[in-house]
């Protein structure tokens, strides 16, 4: 059997009495862009946090390229090739956008303080960071502090920083939220092109027009359960999806 980029097997998560994920299984192929939709509280963010190792599942497992990563720490998973752009932006507010991204591209130096101690230069990482900031449309703001910029900019910083980790699997949690229409369009184009450079992407979005435009495959979740998974046009035509997610009668 050929290993998939990501396999989630029978994952369940409970928060107290609340069942946030119930026996969720799904897969992501190499160089695939999957749209992940579902109503508020469906457990989308929770699933991303399980993949990142920020939430421990009650049961189930997560495999990356066939390797079971269920027991790895978040940091180990990042260095194994997973990255997350969070729904709630978490910029480091004491440093410039450029340094936020440059730090993330530090690679193996970030695993060991002794190794990090030997390196003073940040030139290469800054160059890469500058390029990434240009790609997400923040080229003119790289020297600014996050506090000087509105939410839509910080969402894009979140994406640039996740890309700086050079992941093979990129999880994006509502990266288009807070962006203007042309900005969202530009960001969606950028995401659309990521599989061409070897990334698999899970895109959580409420912006359905953009999702339908760029994602060939959709995964729908509701109340912690899988509702549908398949080609975008089939999924969008599914009566159950229309009922649960769009509130449209079948």
């Amino acid at each position: 059997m050929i290993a998939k980029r990501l396999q989630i097997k029978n994952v369940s998560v409970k928060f107290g009495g609340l069942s946030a994920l119930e026996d969720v299984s799904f897969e992501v192929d190499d160089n695939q862009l999957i749209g992940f939709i579902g109503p508020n509280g469906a457990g989308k963010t929770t699933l991303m946090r399980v993949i990142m190792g920020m939430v421990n599942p009650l049961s189930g497992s997560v495999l990356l390229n066939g390797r079971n990563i269920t027991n790895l720490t978040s940091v180990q998973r990042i260095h194994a090739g997973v990255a997350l752009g969070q729904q709630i932006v978490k910029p480091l507010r004491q440093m410039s956008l450029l340094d936020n991204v440059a730090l993330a591209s530090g690679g193996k130096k970030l695993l060991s303080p002794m190794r990090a101690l030997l390196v003073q230069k940040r030139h290469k990482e800054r160059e890469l960071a500058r390029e990434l900031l240009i790609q997400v449309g923040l080229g003119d703001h790289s020297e600014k502090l996050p506090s000087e910029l509105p939410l839509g900019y910080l969402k894009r910083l979140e994406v640039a920083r996740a890309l700086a980790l050079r992941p093979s699997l990129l999880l994006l949690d509502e990266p288009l939220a807070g962006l203007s229409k042309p900005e969202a369009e530009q960001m969606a184009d950028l995401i659309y092109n990521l599989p061409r450079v070897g990334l698999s992407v899970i895109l959580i979005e409420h912006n359905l027009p953009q999702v339908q435009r760029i994602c060939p495959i959709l995964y729908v979740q509701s109340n912690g359960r899988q509702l549908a998974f398949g080609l975008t046009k089939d999924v969008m035509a599914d009566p159950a999806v229309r009922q649960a997610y769009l509130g449209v009668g079948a």
Partner: protein
Amino acid sequence: MAYEIVVLTNMAIAVLFALSLNVITGFCGQVSLGHAAFLGIGAYTSAMLSKEGVPLIITFIPAMGMAALIGLIVGVASLRVRHDFLAITTMGVVFLFTGIVRKQEILGGEIGIAGIPAPDFGRVGLFATSLLCVLAYLLLTIWIRRSWTGFAFDSIAEDEDTARLLGINVPKFKLFAFVVGTAGAGLAGALYAHQVRFIGPDSFGFVESISVLAMVIVGGIGSIWGVILAAAFLSALPQFFQVIDDYKLLVYGLLLFGAMRFAPEGIDGLLKKIVRRRAVK
């Protein structure tokens, strides 16, 4: 002249001690209310060895090693706690230290260790040695600050969950800060023991821990030059004014409070603000 040398040596030791806490609290953002315990560990280690005839300079190594070893253990124990709990844990360390030392006959118990031999090179020599130690440690901290270790520390000090999501191995970096910081305190302790030539458990208690924290915070958390200034100044004050020495805890407490309330970025922040204002004009 002799008196000035004593004052200057004390200042140098205080600067070294403050710079060492600055690595833990200033660079890495881990508050410690018990840093004097490591000064004590270095002082006791060095004092006992030099009473056995080991030359002062040689005692530096075990003094730093012992402090760093205990620092590493405390670091591992506090990896899971943050903020307020870290403050309480580290406070516990200093009470534990004085509590244990008081009960140990070989460590001199309540009375402490007297008759620590004067270094062969005399008072001026001790001052010069202290200065060299400060200089060496200063260079080390400047190097750390500019390296990727310092870069990673910045993110841990601000938000360790985010640091983790950038791929930073947070526990390792924290432990590194603890080891470098407590080793520095151990070195300061070795110098201190030979400066005063009498040490007891009360020299390394909670008050001393708060004093050094005040130096770091008044200097401006993380700012090397601010901390040096604050440590030099604050350590000189009680030596010149007996009143301040008598009310040390009160004075340092007020300074701490004042700095956090009115100048959260310390001397360094104030200076930068003034410079910036000048530049605007």
